[in-house]
């Protein structure tokens, strides 16, 4: 856990999950691995918070889940985005862009 990495901002995890799943349906472990890859680069994702987040998103009907055979032949719970999930992802991306853009603007002002 290098000091160069910072904990993932509150609420960002949900967005990341939606993003990952918007590419293709995946089970929890696959999502965790993707997150791990991300975290190796920059942010630190606590794996323990992944499953509560998945269930929370499923509760909000942004994700749906089904049991399917995984690449190892075992049944795994695959999550995929619902239509509402896609919309939500778009909304979050937009607001994220606006947020980062405005933060950028503020930073640039000092230059």
């Amino acid at each position, binding site marked *: 856990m290098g000091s160069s990495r910072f904990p993932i901002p509150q609420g960002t995890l949900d967005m990341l999950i939606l993003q990952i799943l918007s590419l293709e349906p995946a089970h929890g472990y696959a999502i965790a691995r993707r997150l791990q890859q991300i975290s190796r680069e920059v942010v630190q994702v606590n794996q323990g918070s992944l499953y*509560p987040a998945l269930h929370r998103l499923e509760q909000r009907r942004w994700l749906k889940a089904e049991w399917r055979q995984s690449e190892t032949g075992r049944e795994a719970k695959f999550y995929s985005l619902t239509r509402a999930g896609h919309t939500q992802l778009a909304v979050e991306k937009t607001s994220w862009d606006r947020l980062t853009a405005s933060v950028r603007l503020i930073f640039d002002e000092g230059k």
Partner: protein
Amino acid sequence: MAKILNLFRSRRDRLERDLDRELRYHIDRRVDDLMKNGSSEAEARRRASLELGGVAQVQEEVRDTWIWRGLDALVLDVRYSIRGLVKSWGFALGTGAVLGLGLGASVAIFSVVNKVLLQPLAYPDAERIVSVETFWTNTGRASADVSGPDFRDWQAHNDVFETMAHYEGEEDVAVVVADRAGFANDMYVSPNFFSVFGQAASAGRLLTERDVPTGGARPTVVVVRHRWAESHFGSAEAAIGKTITVYGRPTHVVGVAAPGFSYPGATDLWVPWRSTGTNRSASDFNVVGKLKAGVALASAQAQMRTIGDNLSRQHPENRLKTVSLTPLQERLTGNVQVMLWVLMGAVIAVLLIACANIANLMLARAVVRTREIALRAALGAGRSRLVRQLLTESAVLGALAAVVGILLASLLVRLLVALSPANLPRLDEVRVDATVLLFALGLSFVSTLFFGVVPAIHASRLDLSDALKQGGAKGTTSGSGPRLRAALVVAEVALSVVLLSAAGLLLRSFERLQRVDLGFTTKRVLVAYTQYAVNSPEDRLNRPRFYADLLERLRAVPGVSAAAGVAFLPMGRELRPASDYFVEGRPDGQPGERPKAEYNGITPGYFETLGIPIRAGRDFDRTDTPERPRVAIINETLARAAFPGESPLGKQLRRGPKAPWLEIVGVVADTRWQDPSQPPPAVIFAASAQGAGGSLSILVRTSLDEASLSSTLRTLVNDVNPTVPVRFETMEKLFADALAYPRFRTQLIGAFGAIAALLAAVGIFSVLAYLVGQRTREIAVRRAVGAQTADVIRLVVGQGLRLVALGLVLGLAGALAVARLLEGLLYEISPWDVATYLGALTVLGVAALLATVIPAIRATTIAPLIALQQE
């Protein structure tokens, strides 16, 4: 409900299963990956779980996201609780039974209190019905007996009453229905009587002004009780228009009262009547009235008081009288109010003790489970979640106890009704109804809070690391546990002392009552009530003959050693006011200040039959006929009061300023009269052959058994006159009935006291056993450094007895405070009776000592080495 629960359960189970699979899949995949990178399997598993932050933790957090969590968690808590309680079923059963018993008893007593004291009488606008009474200013007491002229003046001058009615009656009038003679309770009422109670007829009509006989005629119509109509004619409708013989006179049934109406008491027949007497000193009637809507009792009282004061200025006979109003419910239940509240208090005390015991057990359980709770807390269960879990467990226990309690209560109510004095007001209405159920649920809820909150608070204060470090089942000695437990024990002991002292006082009082010298024998005396109707001068002559004839034949029956007749039975139920008497050659005195004496008509042989010694003079005999001078026998109390220092024999007295003089021919020993706890009153006995008294009750002293003699007697009566009804009783039964109230309350409080003492002993035992367990290590160290067995026993017993002593002292203070309440219920025993309190303290002290001995002995068996090694 079960379906909904099931739905929840299946959905919940599926979710749990899925979550379990999902996480297992994650871990397994991670383990595979890690092993590919060269980790050992154990190491891989450890890491996988660590990365996730603990499987249980994740599960708990995921569960938190499930939105029906609120309800669902409750179901889960309840399931955990039930599972936990099933596992320790002994505990569940024990607490359920103890609390159920406490609840059941409380609910049963409450159902009586509720009906008798709390619920308004079952009449429309019952709160407006009052008993209008004579208030004696010299004694400061109200008496329900009212004279006819007073009643008429009250009725004429007030404007606060909608209606005011009078009634008067005797029990047991002879009624012949279709050739079968029997008894019925009749009541002479003014025709507006039913409107006071807002009653309508269930068949036929009620009484009207035209039904009231005039010019000295006797009533010819009657309204009958619903139940009486059904039992005699099959239905209310069938009774209408029938002719029955009431006291020898043909009478038409014109109406049947509404089902359930039998006021006053258990009246079967209401006979139309109107007060016409002019004697203001007579006290013939009882008066009830219904206040106008919106008139407050106090203002009605004020107006009636003014009317009464005016009357007392106008009429010398009213000099000491005025009027007072008492709500009818209070008049009916006044005698039993104190008793019922005392019972209610006692049973609540038992319930409190039961709750304290259960709180103790729950606390012990919480301590034993300290490690489990600490573990769950460490694994991420929220503190509030834990407290909720413990409270849920209490609630499940409470619900279990409520079910047991309500079932038990419905049985106990029946037992209670069977044990109660038969004339407890409204007894037949007592049952477990909606109010009672609500009370039961409320009480079980409060109890649950009481015994559930204590352990929950205790658990919420647990120091986790401490609890985990200590480990094992021993839990922790820190925190509020031991102090709380000690306080609970002290409270239990104190409450038990209060109950046992009260029980002791009532028991000793009852014992004295039972051994009270009545002045006559009740053994082997059979009583036969009869009634001989008198409607003509011949009847009046024939009645003494009938009784003389009957007694003659009765005395000839083998096994009968004595027989006599008496108008008013000692220990009988008739309540008559004593009447004034006048002694020849002395001033008559003022009304209301004249001496009073009971008056009774008897046949020769009465004193012999009841074993009452004749102190001077003679018994009545055959020579005391109507043609001869009137004679009387007085008792010693009257002799002392009226003729101090002189012989009463040959003196004359009479019952009214114009009544015939009676010559005193004998003085007999005193006997108690209607209430065994009251000292013997002054009594004048007159000869029934000379017209004293009316119908007689037959007393028979016999060696025969009740059944065979009663059939003989019935045959004898039937032979002489088939219209005379007979009913049997024994003198012992009458005496027992006269003690029905003291017996009832003594039995109940005694039972409550015994249960309380038992529960308290169990409480002390469980606390000490627990404390010894806690101090195992300390005791072992003491033993190791040379403490003897005696020292250890002293240590444990001393600890127990300190608690007990504190409880005894507090309890004694409480008992003395409560004793004042009991004062009115006690007979010839002071509420400060030292022996009783010493007895209660001793009983409880010994029980407590026994309860400390077993833990103490266990403490002596602690082997120092083993106990210390276990640490």
